[in-house]
């Protein structure tokens, strides 16, 4: 099993009433609340943590979001660009390139540059982008899945063809597709896809890509990964190994139960934010059936979970090294997960706390995890 360090690079230093005044932490929270001097320190601190992950033997996961204080990483290629030369060995998992919102040629070029400069350390995750990405990019929410799949087809063709071709599809039109360079890993880096809906899983299985879930419960994760394995069985594909399954949780390793819980509770900052439906689930982004829960107080219970609920569901994995091993073992055995994506930092968690947790994990938990197939 491999473990990846991940932070969304949050900007938590906001007035208490900012979220209340602007209705949400995303889309409508004005950038005047971002002090560039504080942001400078934060970026460099978070990048230091990524470099520390490389030193500790952990892999690295990066993402991006837009118009939000929860994630200052606004361009995943820039973050990756700062890290490729400052890290030596870690895989750089980009999870992911927002395919529905970006030129596929730009993605093919960015990914190839990262891969070539790093000497083949890139894992290229392709994502549709969450609902709150719709308004900043102003992409029509009803065709994001279509755009993502067409962009995927175009990028993979460009990487495999290694020649100039014409693409006149539904959403993308290029008369001369010819992105330079081509990736270091041939024909292309490993591809990962995030998923939260069972209906989207067969496509991932059909392409033999790694399926990653983000902050889903054990139950949801198991259902998604079972759907993947079932598809492989139905289609007579070789049985997928654990390397096809990745799980992202909020994680904290502490010396004592008390310290672990204190750390775990700090991670809640990320989850306890308002989710106005118009921004989180714009019409068309998910089918109407998936939208109804946003208008149903019972359906929204998912977003009002207690710390204990989140621990029980595996969304937060926090504990002493021994407890963390037990919890990850449970996850590994129940869901067949081969990649643990660790959101080791959120909200007000300090640099020292983050580093200490990473260190404890790397020295006292990871050696055990590494032996699991």
């Amino acid at each position, binding site marked *: 099993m491999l473990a990846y360090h991940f932070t969304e690079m949050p900007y938590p230093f906001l007035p208490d009433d900012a979220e209340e005044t602007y209705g949400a932490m995303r889309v409508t929270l004005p950038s005047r609340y971002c002090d560039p001097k504080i942001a400078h320190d934060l970026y460099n601190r978070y990048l230091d943590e990524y470099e520390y992950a490389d030193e500790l033997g952990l892999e690295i996961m990066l993402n991006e979001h837009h118009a939000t204080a929860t994630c200052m990483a606004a361009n995943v290629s820039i973050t990756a660009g700062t890290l490729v030369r400052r890290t030596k060995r870690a895989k750089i998992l980009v999870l992911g390139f927002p395919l529905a919102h970006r030129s596929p040629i730009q993605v093919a070029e960015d990914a190839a540059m990262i891969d070539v400069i790093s000497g083949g350390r890139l894992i290229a995750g392709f994502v549709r982008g969450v609902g709150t990405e719709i308004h900043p990019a102003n992409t029509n929410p009803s065709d994001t899945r279509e755009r993502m799949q067409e962009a995927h087809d175009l990028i993979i063709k460009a990487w495999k063809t290694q020649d100039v071709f014409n693409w006149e599809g539904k959403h993308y039109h290029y008369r001369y597709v010819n992105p330079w360079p081509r990736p270091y890993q041939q024909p292309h880096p490993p591809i990962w896809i995030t998923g939260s809906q069972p209906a989207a899983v067969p496509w991932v299985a059909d392409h033999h890509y790694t399926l990653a879930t983000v902050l889903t419960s054990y139950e949801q994760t198991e259902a998604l990964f079972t759907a993947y394995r079932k598809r492989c069985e139905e289609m007579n594909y070789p049985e997928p190994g654990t390397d096809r399954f990745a799980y992202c949780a909020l994680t904290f390793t502490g010396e004592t139960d008390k310290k672990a819980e204190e750390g775990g509770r700090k991670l809640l900052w990320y989850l306890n934010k308002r989710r106005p439906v118009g921004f989180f689930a714009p*019409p068309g982004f998910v089918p109407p059936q998936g939208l*109804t829960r946003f*208008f149903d107080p019972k359906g929204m219970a998912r977003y009002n979970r207690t710390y204990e609920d989140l621990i029980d569901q595996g969304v937060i994995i926090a504990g002493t090294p021994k407890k963390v091993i037990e919890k990850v073992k449970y996850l590994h055995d129940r869901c067949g997960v081969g990649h643990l994506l660790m959101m080791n930092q959120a909200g007000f968690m300090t640099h020292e706390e983050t580093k200490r947790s990473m260190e404890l994990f790397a020295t006292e938990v990871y050696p055990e995890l590494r032996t699991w197939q």
Partner: protein
Amino acid sequence: MTWVSETMEVDGVKLGVRRRGEGAPVVILYGDQLETPVPPFDDALAAGIQAVVPSLPGVNRSELPGWVDTMEDLAFLGLDLLEGLDAGPVDVIGHGFGGWVAAEMAVRSHQQIRRLALVDSVGIKVSAPTVRDVQDVYVYTVQEVAELAWHDPAAAQVLRWPGMDGVEGDELLTLLRNRQSVLKFAWRPFMYNPKLMRRLARIRVPVHLFWGESDRVVTPDYGRALQQAIPGAGFTAIPKAGHYPQWEQPKALARAVTKFLESS
């Protein structure tokens, strides 16, 4: 008189239609509203009018095939629907997004349109880039929408809206599908076609605009700009009505529309 639910096939697309009365048809185009409850305006139209109210593709019982994905597709479908009525040129009333569809039909062909009534319609860009001419009602809460869309926000309960108390199950599902379908055609630019303003000058049939005086979703000033772009168009403000005069002042709207249809 009671409404009859029917299905009409236009260009291979099955559309849900509700119909009432006999005589010369008047086609009413709404946006993402439910088929029932029926807006009281529709009931208030004169008995001698055959009201034909199709739901747009993807709205209520109407299909939304993959090939229908632009406003232009809706405009041609609308024109083909009128032709399919086989009643010669007919009167068309459009509200909101439905008004935009009606305008896009009229700039393309007058063959099937006799007169056009536009009620609190969208479709054009009037103000500076930094000004939202059409409010973002799909982002706002039920309370915020009531404040913007109604003269009397307390009366907003009659128009079903996701997030409103008691809106659940199939009704909620239909409302969500309806708004999703409409937004497929109206996301970017939001609720307008930059080409429409100039093209409105092509309209040769009598046009009259009806606007809720208190509409803050698309203001009466926006309506005036729309009126000025259409040769010879008239304008009637509906007092004590917001964005939905068909709900808030149905009788006053019916009187005004009937007067237009009888006089022009």
